């Protein structure tokens, strides 16, 4: 029997959630509604001439080959960031979990990059990889003869932003994986070891399945990160260039709306992104929160 304490007052609960509702309405729903309205209008930046044009902004968007290219770019980028940051994060977590000496120090050091803002991480990597003044770039050009030029070549620029974005996310994944790993009972692994399973096999048949809830959660979070939080990295490092090779969806919203002052078009893009994030959130709630259990 669960003990419940009940409030007799009918208004009190509403009063208590009021601040939260006010904040949500002003900072989330109101701008979202504004965005929705803007996306069906054609208007000048100063809002002096506005015409209602139904869904013309959306049809124009999906007819635009550059938008479709931007979708492809974003998907490619997100997959690369997610795969590389998860695999490296998992690898490091497995190693760190086994470390005997200075465990705490190693872990703390590995978590640090997560505290770095994406824009700063972009600047740090740019100082390493810029073809004109990046230390590493100058080094590999001089000593290894690699013709590294992200300012000119789209593929190099893509590699560069993937590295900068994934680097930061590795720490995030590391934290979750190390927590997940610690929840796996030692006895299972020891039993397998006694049965003669190799370390790799133990990892593959015991650790990975037991880690799957974490893995799923981390994947979703990484995709969201790669889609929506990497604006700073792109802005600092490539500005969507060269030749639009790193123009991700979020960056395109900024370029068309804030730089180009095309309000209707960029609002339509934001609505598309909003729909996308709603879908991802629904999936996450349906599968992650309900079906997967966080147990060892």
């Amino acid at each position, binding site marked *: 029997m669960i003990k419940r304490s009940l409030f007799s007052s009918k208004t009190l609960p509403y009063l208590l959630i009021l601040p939260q509702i006010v904040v949500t309405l002003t900072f989330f729903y109101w701008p979202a509604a504004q965005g929705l309205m803007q996306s069906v209008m054609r208007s000048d930046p100063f809002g002096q001439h506005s015409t209602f044009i139904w869904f013309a902004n959306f049809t124009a968007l999906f007819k635009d080959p550059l938008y479709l290219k931007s979708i492809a770019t974003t998907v490619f980028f997100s997959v690369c960031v997610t795969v590389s940051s998860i695999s490296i994060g998992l690898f490091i977590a497995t190693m760190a979990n086994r470390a005997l000496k200075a465990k705490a120090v190693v872990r703390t050091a590995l978590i640090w990059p997560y505290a770095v803002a994406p824009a700063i991480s972009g600047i740090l990597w740019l100082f390493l990889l*810029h073809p004109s003044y990046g230390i590493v770039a100058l080094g590999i050009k001089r000593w290894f003869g690699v013709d590294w030029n992200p300012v000119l070549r789209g593929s190099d620029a893509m590699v560069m932003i993937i590295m900068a974005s994934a680097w930061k996310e590795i720490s995030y994944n590391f934290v979750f994986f190390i927590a997940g790993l610690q929840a796996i009972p030692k006895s299972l692994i020891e039993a397998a070891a006694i049965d003669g399973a190799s370390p790799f096999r133990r990892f593959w048949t015991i650790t990975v399945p037991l880690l799957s809830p974490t893995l799923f959660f981390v994947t979703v979070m990484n995709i969201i990160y790669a889609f929506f939080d990497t604006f700073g990295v792109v802005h600092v490092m490539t500005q969507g260039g060269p030749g639009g090779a790193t123009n991700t969806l979020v960056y395109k919203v900024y370029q068309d709306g804030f730089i180009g002052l095309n309000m209707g078009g960029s609002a339509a893009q934001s609505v598309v992104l909003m729909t996308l994030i709603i879908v991802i959130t629904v999936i996450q709630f349906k599968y992650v929160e309900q079906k997967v259990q966080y147990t060892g």
Partner: protein
Amino acid sequence: MKTRRMIMVAAMIVFTLFIAGQVMAEPITINWWHSMKGPRGQVVDTMIKAFNDSQSDYVVVGSYKGDYDETVNAGVAAYRAKKQPHILQSFEVGTQTMMLSGAIYPVYKLMKEQGYDINWKGYLQPVLSYYMNANGDLMSMPFNSSTPVMYYNVDLFKKAGIPMLDKETPVTWDELGEIGTKLIKSGVSGGLTCGWQSWTQVENYSAMHNIPFASKANGYEGLDCELLINNPKVVAHIAMLKEWMKDGRFFYGGQKFQGPTAEFLAQNAAIYIDSISAIAKLQKSAKDFKWDVAPMPVESWMKNPQNSIIGGASLWVFNGHNKKDYKGVAAFLKHLSRQDMQIYWHKETGYFPITLAAYEQLKKDGYYREFPYQEVGIKQLTRREPTTVSRGLRLGYFIQIRNIINEELELVWNDTKTAQEALDSAVKRSNQQLREFEKIYK
């Protein structure tokens, strides 16, 4: 009881002081949002301070709002929220958007209505023409204006046995090609690189060779204009640069200025095309070599090259403020174009002095004998009367159009497209933007 009386008395005193303060006519605050930071920001602050100290009716408050695009954005957002500043600095590509915004108080009108009879003929015409409407009325106050010039590394030129370039007569592109060959032979890793490629290699190239950039007099005479940059001459120019990339006579250092400047400073590029405002940066950073300035190259078939066009920004006055405020705004704009202010501005930043009087004074003072490279840009800008083709560009969504041109040029540099394909595609994409823009104001 006693404390209560004390509080009453205190309250009375505060109240009286408050009323007295109101009566004693506070100076009116004039807000100016700009994009000038670092050394330029300090120069701006000094100019503001000079104005505030010279009178007591107005106080100008300058606020740095970020890069040009961020400042324009701040202005847009503020105008929508009815909290607009009096003066907004906007870059030259935003001219059409600002002009049609319906949010501005045209400068020619402001000055006339506030009783300033300004002789606009006394200003640098190629600068004014960029900010005039079709009737020749000035819509915004020119502030920081620049133009592209060619920098070259004197030491590397000497090493390759190349004579120094003239400061008034431009070299031809063919000659520059030969210079490039000599440079590469002498062991320099790269010949020419340039910043702001759309501005320097397409917009200014077109203006100086009197080639229309867009129909309808570059957009001055109608929103239904179309881009014309896929003409044989511009295509040939881009194709030539692409050809030069093969042996390193030209190489690409990035869209803006950071990459190309770094290459010039590291002596990877012996020649560097960029705005005259790069002078300040080079003076500070180029320590281990000598450099000099020459006018932009022209084609050998262009016997009398036209003026180059400007870049930079101008000051727009927003509508919707009190009448009294505008008196102060006008006084401040007048102050900024004062001769001493313009001379100070030019010396400190390298941007043009916008009045002819200031330019003449600088000449008389022997300033250009001491710093001859400071005069290259202004001479190139004023070498001929602007034509309808070389006076400027007036395009809607020009910011996107520049981005499109930049993108397409990058696709030429990295072998994805030929010059013709890229410029055709740039025209096609830009025309779509122009049509979208036209629809807004129909």
